[in-house]
């Protein structure tokens, strides 16, 4: 075992040749956080008694769901052959919704540990991130984790990894994050195989922001990797995308608690505090330079986060609307990808149209709103952004079915996704059938090993957003893993299906769907509402319509008996209380025209099928 570094390099004065910057690419549950924790312990930056399980996953939701949403960077000392090195581990978010953040983390590193569960093999998102890392020309260290598990099959998966990255199976390291076996050897390998960062120490300072986190006490904490030059405290820095200048109040490294330093030099990774209160002023991917001696060229690769999925968020209790607005304002401080606009719905009242990077992002935001701000929310069916061209060639961007233009439509374009699915070979047929039914086009198929296949489809994003992942899971006994990325758009025969209660349109239930699926959506929704909406004093037709054409209809029959047949001495209080309870219940009813719809019916109709907490697990 390598000794702990006896004389660790001092931040701000570390020679780039002893710096190693790396990240860990892994699928959820493959043990990335456990391994990272073990590294913190091995290198002595965290004492065993201070160890919280999965130290780096800071948010409760992250810890509970076992996913990493926001990345962090930790500096660890490590000695090899008498030389003390500084290792910067840059933690990456594991989910497809955050692939841009992943790409920025990768761009800050020279190498990546490809961590794979020795009992499960590589999964689709890991593969996607691996490809991304290879595009960035990172040195890859293949590692099998959980070799202590009885079900581990390291020989088999070592062969799979070797084939993927073009190395020998014996080059694949075997570790156990749980027991610590193999971790020192892995740290040694990081030092010996990864290149040291290269940069110009005397050039104007340039550092790339790979993460930006809002902290209630300290404002925005910005994580950077210095490429050229040097950042020092009490200087003014400039954000190159916006030109905005900020005072540098504090600069330092995390190990893993923040530790102020005299600056950061070439190749170093650390944090900046400038006193800004909104992560939008310190955007991931942006280049930081010095106001006094600015660089001319950005590092490159910066782009604004693009929301891909929109959903309406409404408080169940209408009086909570201001609370929801304040809560979104607060979350926005820490989430540059979150954007929203006020929206009103006839059925749901006042709420917000919120744009998200993907479904996981949506669920995380919703969960945080409910948990941290004690809100009860209804979210409408998620939808993507459509470009609708009307007959007079006006182009309308539709993020909400209610914006879909009336009248004749020239063309509707929908966003497409490039989807990668990895499954055991026995499920190829089931997956292809599903993708085909979701309007997907096969792009290719590769065997990763004899048993496992990577299948690639081009598929409308709207189909993925709807219930694709649940269907995929159920058709593959849970074995499939999915990754997707934006892949242009296509023209398609899309229509808006409206749902009408007694002739009154219920905006919350409108959906944009392919014409071929309009009928099934209409019959599904009308049937569902028939079950959910209680009988009224009159007959209520529930219709689904495209424009003025009715495509499905159900009837809620009128109530015929609405009386308690017995009302004697002791029944009187009871019956009165029953009526008083109904009076209370009435307050939770939403009126659609003259039809009373219980709040629960909206929630049930909007929540089933269309979204599932399980997606967060992938």
């Amino acid at each position, binding site marked *: 075992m390598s000794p702990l570094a006896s004389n660790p390099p001092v931040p701000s004065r570390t020679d780039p040749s002893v710096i190693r910057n790396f990240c860990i690419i892994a699928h959820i549950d493959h043990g990335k956080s456990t391994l990272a924790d073990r590294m913190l312990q091995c290198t002595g930056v965290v004492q065993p008694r201070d160890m919280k399980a999965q130290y780096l996953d800071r948010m409760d939701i992250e810890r509970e769901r076992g996913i990493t949403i926001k990345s962090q960077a930790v500096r660890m000392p490590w000695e090899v052959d008498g030389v003390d090195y500084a290792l910067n581990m840059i933690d990456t978010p594991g989910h497809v919704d955050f692939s841009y953040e992943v790409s920025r983390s990768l761009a800050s590193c020279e190498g990546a540990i490809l961590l794979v569960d020795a009992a499960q093999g590589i999964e689709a998102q890991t593969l996607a991130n691996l490809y991304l890392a290879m595009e960035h020309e990172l040195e890859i260290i293949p590692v099998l984790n959980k070799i202590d598990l009885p079900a581990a099959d390291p020989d088999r998966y070592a062969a799979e990894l070797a084939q993927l990255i073009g190395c020998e199976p014996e080059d694949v390291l075997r570790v156990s994050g749980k027991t610590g076996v193999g971790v020192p050897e892995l740290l040694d390998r990081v030092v010996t195989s990864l290149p040291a960062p290269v940069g110009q120490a005397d050039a104007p300072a340039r550092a790339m922001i790979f993460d930006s986190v809002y902290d209630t006490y300290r404002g925005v904490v910005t994580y950077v990797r210095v490429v050229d030059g040097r950042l020092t405290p009490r200087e003014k820095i400039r954000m190159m995308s916006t030109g905005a200048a900020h005072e540098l109040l504090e600069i330092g490294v995390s190990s893993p608690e923040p530790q102020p330093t005299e600056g950061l030099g070439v190749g170093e990774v650390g944090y900046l505090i400038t006193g800004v209160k909104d992560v939008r002023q310190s955007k991931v991917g942006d280049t930081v330079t010095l106001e006094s001696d600015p660089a001319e060229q950005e590092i490159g690769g910066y782009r604004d986060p693009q929301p891909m999925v929109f959903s309406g968020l409404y408080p169940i209790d209408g009086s909570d609307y201001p609370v929801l607005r304040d809560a979104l304002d607060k979350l926005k401080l820490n989430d540059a990808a979150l954007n929203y606009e006020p929206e009103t719905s006839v059925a749901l009242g006042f709420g917000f149209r919120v744009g998200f990077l993907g479904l996981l992002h949506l669920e995380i935001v919703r969960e945080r709103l409910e948990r941290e701000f004690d809100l009860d929310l209804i979210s409408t069916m998620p939808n993507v952004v459509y470009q609708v061209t009307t007959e007079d060639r006006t182009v309308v961007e539709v993020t909400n079915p209610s914006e879909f233009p009336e009248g004749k439509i020239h063309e509707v374009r929908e966003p497409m996704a490039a989807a990668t699915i990895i499954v055991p070979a026995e499920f190829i047929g089931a997956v292809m059938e599903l993708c085909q039914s979701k309007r997907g086009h096969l792009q290719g198929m590769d065997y990763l090993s004899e048993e496992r296949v990577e299948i690639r489809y081009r598929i409308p994003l709207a189909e993925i957003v709807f219930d694709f992942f649940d269907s995929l899971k159920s058709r593959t006994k849970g074995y499939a893993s999915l990754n997707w990325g934006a892949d242009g758009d296509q023209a398609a025969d899309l229509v808006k299906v409206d749902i009408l209660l007694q002739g009154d349109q219920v905006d919350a239930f409108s959906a944009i769907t392919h014409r071929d699926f309009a009928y099934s959506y209409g019959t599904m929704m009308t049937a569902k509402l028939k079950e959910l909406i209680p009988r009224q*004093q009159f007959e209520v037709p529930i219709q689904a319509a495209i424009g003025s054409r009715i495509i499905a209809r159900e009837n809620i*029959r009128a*109530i*015929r*008996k*609405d*009386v*308690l*047949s*017995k*009302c*004697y*001495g*002791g*029944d*009187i*209080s*009871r*019956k*009165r*209380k029953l*009526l*008083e309870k*109904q*009076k209370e219940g*009435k307050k939770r009813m939403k009126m659609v025209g003259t039809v009373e719809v219980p709040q629960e019916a909206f929630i049930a109709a909007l929540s089933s099928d269309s979204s599932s907490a399980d997606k967060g697990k992938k």
Partner: protein
Amino acid sequence: MPAVLPLGDPVPDDGRLPSSCGEAVRRSLAAGVPRTFSLYVHVPFCTVRCGYCDFNTYTAPDLGPGASRGDYVDTAVAEVGFARRALEDSEVPARPLHTVFFGGGTPTLLPAAHLVRILDAAREAFGMVDGAEVTVEANPDTVDEAYLRELAAGGVTRVSVGMQSAVPHVLATLERTHRPENIPAAVDAARAAGLDVSLDLIYGTPGESLGDWRTTVETAIACRPDHISAYSLIVEEGTKFSAQVARGQVADVDPDDQADKYLLADELLEAAGFRWYEVSNWAHDPQETGAHRAEHNVAYWRDMDWWGIGPGSHSHVAGVRFWNAKHPAAYAQRLATGVTPAVGREVPDAEARLLEQIMLHVRMVEGLDVRVLEQAEDGGAAARARIPQLIAAGLIDGGLAQAGRIVPTLQGRLRNDHIVRELAGF
């Protein structure tokens, strides 16, 4: 009595009522507004418990001192005395009993002499108006002519027989053990003893066809009773029946089926000279003189006063509602130590009182006097505004509404709660 008691305020040990009660009664009497006083006597014993029943009743013959079939009579008589003292102490003016009703459980499980003893005690404590109606609920299997004659001799004027159905498989589903052929005999025996007779029917039991129900109503009519009550089967929480429904062993009741059966019952009964006077009650009254109504129940619907004797019984005196300990042993023990058997009470506020009046009065053929609605905060404006819609929907009689009375039509009886909600403004 329902098995679940509402939460309420505490009752002082001496059972004394708020002073507002006495004042309210005196005011009514002075103004000539009727405010009669009745007595309900609960007998909490049955030989078997029917699966649908959620009444406060027990099959064990001995539930502890003062609460066994043999000595319950002493406890009930003790409460009659307690009631008289409590009303006196509360300065509620003494009024003779307008009606008495023995309900259960199965009152006829007690010896006739016991029921008569309680009635005697009540008469002695409060007095009784001339021609007061005194009803006893009877199980056809537990009465014979001698028993009924003994009741009649003791002052009982009327029996209410739990017939429920004339169809064996329906009785089996209801877990009623009586034999349908005993019903006519019981009715005849009661008549021979000089008693008025009412039959209780239940419709909408799972498995009961419309034809079955027709048979039941026709059989009941053929017995020539003076009065028929027909109730839709209700799946009450906590009953064996509701557990069976929850497990899917028995089909749930179907409100549409019950609506059909209500309409059929009304049609058959009207044709046979019975007149509806409350949602679930029809009196044999071909000349429409108001004869043969269950006066005791009418007193409930007219918001009169009554004292409920027995475990779990509810009482109402001038706007104050209170209720007794539910378990017979706990009930008897309280009385034995001189403490009120009442364990809770409530004084509904003005809004709740108005709701009670609306819901009670619109059940009846005399309907609701629209002036009652003026008690609402807005002087009844909102309620009045809804009357035209109720007429248009065919739920209340338009002509009578114009004359100032809200009287439900046949459809309005079936959707009576809707009328109540509309008039109460929600």
